[in-house]
């Protein structure tokens, strides 16, 4: 073969091999890595549990962290996932309706809280009604993150949502609960609505915790996805339950 053609042949070969390796991913063998899709808010404790699991069993767990809605879309579109941890049980019910779930359970209870930054505390913010004063800066997650929907519920049920929007006090709608927490932590806003666990994780001051009558039931759930490594997923899920203290220390309550 001529020189340039040989060069191209080699590149083509590399591409082909690379492609095959990538798509081969995890074949169903005992030591196959586990694909776990996890809501972003669970990252810290989940990382710890994953490390423990790999140490104990030698099995690699590959977590995919993201907003629960985005993860739902990926699973719904057929992306390979063995186990799904969602911050919104509704999404798991959606997957069940689509016939994609082999076994699902409610895992933990979560609550929406109002966290207040340093400046917010100086401004005397203790309850949601305080937010309707002038020049208050509030962060509420975008509805693409479940916490955003729940926060909206709380504010609507408190009769404050329309007023806050009219005043323009909701200055930012970030796309994840962690971003909201970050903004409260760095004092770029006066108050932000997060999960109670997020507040603990980020060491934020919580002034109000809202019941399900205001926010609607917030249940973190897990679902073993049909057609994936169901045995492996079940083993890991049980391990997570056994190690739930890693989670409850952040304020979550187990859904008994």
């Amino acid at each position, binding site marked *: 073969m001529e020189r340039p*053609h040989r060069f*191209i042949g080699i590149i*083509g070969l590399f591409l082909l091999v690379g492609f095959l390796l990538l798509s081969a991913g995890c074949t169903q063998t005992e030591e196959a890595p586990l694909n776990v899709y996890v809501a972003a808010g669970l990252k810290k404790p989940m990382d710890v549990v994953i490390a423990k699991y790999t140490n104990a069993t030698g099995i690699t767990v590959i977590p995919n962290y993201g*907003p629960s*809605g*985005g993860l739902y*879309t990926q699973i719904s579109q057929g992306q390979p996932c063995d186990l799904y941890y969602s911050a919104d049980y509704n999404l798991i019910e959606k997957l069940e309706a689509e016939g994609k779930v082999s076994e699902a359970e409610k895992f933990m209870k979560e609550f929406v809280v109002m966290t207040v930054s340093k*400046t917010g505390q100086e401004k005397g913010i203790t309850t949601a009604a305080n937010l309707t004063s002038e*020049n*208050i*800066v509030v962060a509420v997650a*975008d*509805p*693409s*993150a479940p916490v955003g929907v729940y926060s909206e519920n709380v504010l609507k049920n408190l009769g404050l949502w329309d007023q806050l929007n009219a005043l*323009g006090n*909701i*200055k*930012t*709608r*970030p*796309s994840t609960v962690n*971003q909201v927490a*970050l*903004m409260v932590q*760095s*004092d*770029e*806003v006066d108050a932000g609505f997060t999960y109670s666990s997020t507040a603990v994780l980020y060491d934020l001051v919580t002034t109000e915790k809202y019941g399900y009558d205001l926010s609607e039931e917030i249940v973190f759930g897990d679902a073993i996805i049909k057609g994936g490594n169901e045995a492996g997923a079940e083993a890991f899920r049980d391990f997570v339950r056994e190690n739930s203290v890693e989670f409850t220390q952040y304020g979550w309550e187990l859904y008994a």
Partner: protein
Amino acid sequence: MRKVSIWEVLFVPLFFLLIVYPILAIIGNVTIEGMIKTFDDPIFWDSVKNTLITAFFAALLGVLMALGFGYFYIFHPGTIIYKIADFMNDLPIALPHTVAGLALLLAFGRNMFGFIGPTGLAFTLIAVVLAMFFVSYPLAARTIASAAEEIDKEQISVARTLGDTPPKAYRRVVIPLLGEAIFSGFVLSFSRSISEFAAVIMFGGNVPGMTQVLASYVFTKVEEGEVSMAVTASAFCILLSLMLVIVLRLRGRLHARSAESA
């Protein structure tokens, strides 16, 4: 039969598969129902308006800054400021966009710029412009810098012997010669700004109707499960970009034709 080269065999199908097909997938999935829902949504039109205005100013700022950089490149290439700027030109592109957004927030938010208002510069349309500028400036800078490299430096030397101070020579000789590059730098920055997303959300605020841009609108609709609306908004985006590219091409062709006939 003519022997077909390996380039023709590989390129054509790959190009259609990887580039054209996904775009067609979006356009093909547009439904009447989706179009009605989307075009009825005032938030959609707000995001379109916000996006176009902010991207325009971001691109304008980008081009002006790139021209400033060009000045240093031509007249003061030995200085520290030029060397730093040259090095930094490529930095924003290397930064993950949420990091860029966070950086802008910490730099221009109320902790440093509190004297401007309760949120500093953050969570305003100006913030959106700044975020877009931050990520798209490197494109304008590179376009203009490489065009500046191509300029015959003798023309500048001659202009100076005819009495032009460096700023005058830059204005009267360099900028007209950069002509095309300025325009394409603007269009590149504008396109990049339209598609910016993560940095804008972090720093701009993403409040529907106020600081939400089209890219984020699409994202939210996807996450909400409103796929038909997301598809319509995306197709709209694609059409916008397509029009921009066509404008660029037409100008390029017109310019070439006028240069020949003049």
